[in-house]
């Protein structure tokens, strides 16, 4: 059922759950809770199509070195039904087990849950984003073949590419056809009302895009508006909580992380194409593609034991072929070449077709250290609804760039010792950093309320009935794109709430 916040006909209902934000997390939660009969209010700022006036409610300012431009805030996320899945590329991969662990060489690392606890939800998430199940393999065992490479730790983890699933299109009918799910569109949460003891919320104050103000009451509340907006809403909701909601210890908005990308990292020359037959057998790569029409691609990375030994951050290196047709002998296989150019991964080259070494550019996608000083704050300026705009500060240190370079050197040594190729490395301290448009960590999960905002169930420490969904709860970022993991955590949260309702 759709309710337009711009109209003045509001049902007088106390919902079981109010969910703010109809992106991947919000839609997942609403569908999951809705199918079990719970009364759900799904509150979305936008409509079913993008509206630039609404999109510009994201406007704000930035500082640091990632991102460099203010427009990042309005161009890296989308404020209408379906959220940022309306434009995502579809890269999916579960986090590595090591990403969840406390690592003494990564400050502020460690999740209160471990990967194995999330496996059932990962399996369900794979269905929602329309990919195949990731095999339950220990990828650290899958070096490029021989034992002598273990000490250098080269591995080739893979991503699957969702079609990409546009949650707003794919699951729209599941939402609007459900009698017990009320989709409030054009509706923005601007504050909360609390019960007298302040330990629980009572209602959300909503302002429509036309300026209409109304309240929605619920038993439980979930913020699922993205890594920047979740923090903004909490910091701006001051009528009952002067420090901002859930922010008595000044943690909300801190520990922001991106996935630093370095496009001009160097290049790779491979002439022994990874013993291709065994490589193909190793993951059943092509069969996976053929059977279910899901694209996959590989990256290079360093194994978890070697990350531990060398105190490395978790990075991935994508290979983008540098292919000049004049350099390729005529193999009579134009289709294959086009396919290669389209699907990128150098590993799918059949060396019998090419008699030149394969040359690829390297693109780093890396974990960023969670640092307290990288944060979302409110500025003095206000948006069209009267809500303070955000200021985002995020700085990737030179030490982190050095750490990424160390991983590349190990990859170079590994390929060299295996007589497979050579790597060119061009990571400089003035490297132009780009982001993956991933907003992580501002309401991080943890057991210690002085360094985290939510507990292992994604409940805000200071409140009994406010939960957070999305990548803002990730304590660390890994290198994997966040969507699969945030959908899994949303399913886990739905499961938890069902025990409370």
């Amino acid at each position, binding site marked *: 059922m759709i309710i337009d916040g711009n109209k003045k006909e509001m049902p007088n209902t106390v919902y079981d759950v109010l969910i703010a934000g109809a992106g991947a997390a919000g839609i997942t939660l609403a569908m999951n809770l809705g199918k079990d009969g719970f009364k759900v209010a799904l509150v979305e700022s936008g409509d079913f199509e993008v509206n630039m006036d609404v999109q510009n409610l994201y406007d704000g300012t930035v500082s640091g070195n990632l991102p460099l431009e203010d427009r990042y805030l309005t161009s890296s996320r989308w404020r209408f039904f379906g959220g940022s899945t309306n434009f995502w590329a579809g890269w999916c991969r579960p986090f590595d087990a090591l990403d969840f662990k406390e690592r003494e060489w990564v400050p502020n690392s460690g999740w209160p849950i471990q990967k194995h606890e999330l496996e059932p939800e990962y399996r369900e998430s794979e269905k929602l984003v329309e990919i195949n199940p990731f095999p339950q393999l220990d990828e650290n065992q899958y070096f490029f073949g021989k034992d*002598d490479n273990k*000490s*250098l730790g080269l591995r080739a983890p893979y991503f699957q590419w969702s079609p990409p699933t546009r949650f707003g299109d794919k699951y729209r009918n599941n939402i609007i056809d459900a009698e017990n799910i009320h989709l409030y569109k054009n509706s923005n949460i601007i504050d909360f009302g609390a019960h007298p003891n302040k330990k629980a919320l009572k209602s959300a104050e909503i302002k429509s895009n036309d300026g209409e103000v109304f309240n929605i009451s619920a038993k439980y509340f979930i913020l699922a508006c993205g890594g920047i907006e979740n923090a903004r809403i909490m910091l701006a909701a001051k009528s009952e909580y002067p420090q901002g909601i859930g922010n008595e210890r000044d943690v909300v908005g801190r520990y922001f992380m991106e996935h630093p990308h370095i496009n001009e990292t*160097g290049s790779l*020359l491979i*002439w022994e194409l990874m013993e291709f037959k065994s490589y193909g057998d190793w993951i059943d790569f092509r069969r996976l593609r053929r059977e279910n029409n899901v694209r996959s691609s590989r990256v290079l990375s360093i194994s978890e034991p070697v990350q531990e030994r060398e105190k490395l951050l978790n990075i991935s290196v994508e290979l983008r072929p540098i292919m000049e047709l004049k350099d390729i002998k005529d193999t009579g296989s134009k289709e294959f070449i086009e396919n290669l150019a389209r699907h990128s991964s150098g590993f799918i080259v059949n060396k019998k077709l090419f008699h030149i*070494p394969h*040359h690829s550019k390297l693109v780093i996608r890396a974990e960023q250290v969670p640092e307290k000083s990288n944060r979302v704050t409110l500025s003095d300026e206000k948006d069209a609804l009267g809500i303070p705009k955000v200021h985002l500060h995020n700085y990737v240190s030179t030490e982190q760039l050095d750490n990424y370079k160390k991983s590349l*050197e*190990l990859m*170079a*040594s*590994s390929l*060299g*010792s295996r*007589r497979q190729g*050579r*790597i*060119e*490395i*061009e990571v400089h301290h003035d490297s132009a950093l780009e982001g993956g448009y991933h907003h992580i960590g501002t309401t991080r999960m943890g057991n210690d309320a002085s360094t985290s905002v939510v507990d292992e169930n994604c409940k805000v420490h200071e409140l009994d009935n406010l939960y957070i969904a999305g990548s803002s709860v990730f304590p660390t970022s890994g290198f994997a794109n966040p969507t699969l993991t945030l959908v899994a955590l949303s399913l886990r949260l739905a499961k938890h709430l069902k025990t409370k309702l």
Partner: protein
Amino acid sequence: MNMEKKGAISRRKFLVGIIAASGLSFLGGNIYSGKRIGRFFSDGLKPSEAEIKHYLKNLPEATKKIGREYIQNKQGEDLEEELFNDFYSRFTKNTISGFKHFNVNEMLMGIIQDDYRHNRIVYINNWVFSQMEARLCGLAFVLSK
């Protein structure tokens, strides 16, 4: 790579050089594992300086271009001697371990792999080489002057 500097080689030539230089260790049946060198070392005896220098001088041109880039920033009058002594001592250290049929190719491969395994690496124009590969290239250039 600074394409502006005098005498710099093009990126394409450099890539070709890398492939050739890498051939030193494992592609290069033509250079080390072939008949010419096998003729001299097949008895497993320690090769002489003259023999080694002869073969280094005859490495491919592309290898020498890598070598030129490698030594460009090195200073010192005894560069040739330093490079050679370094290379020769390491090379010959491995030739007296009782092999009946000494294979130069395998031996160099072993040294180079060992360099990589222990992360003994050298940057040449941002490309990562093992120390031994870099010295081979450097020597090939110096000796050919």
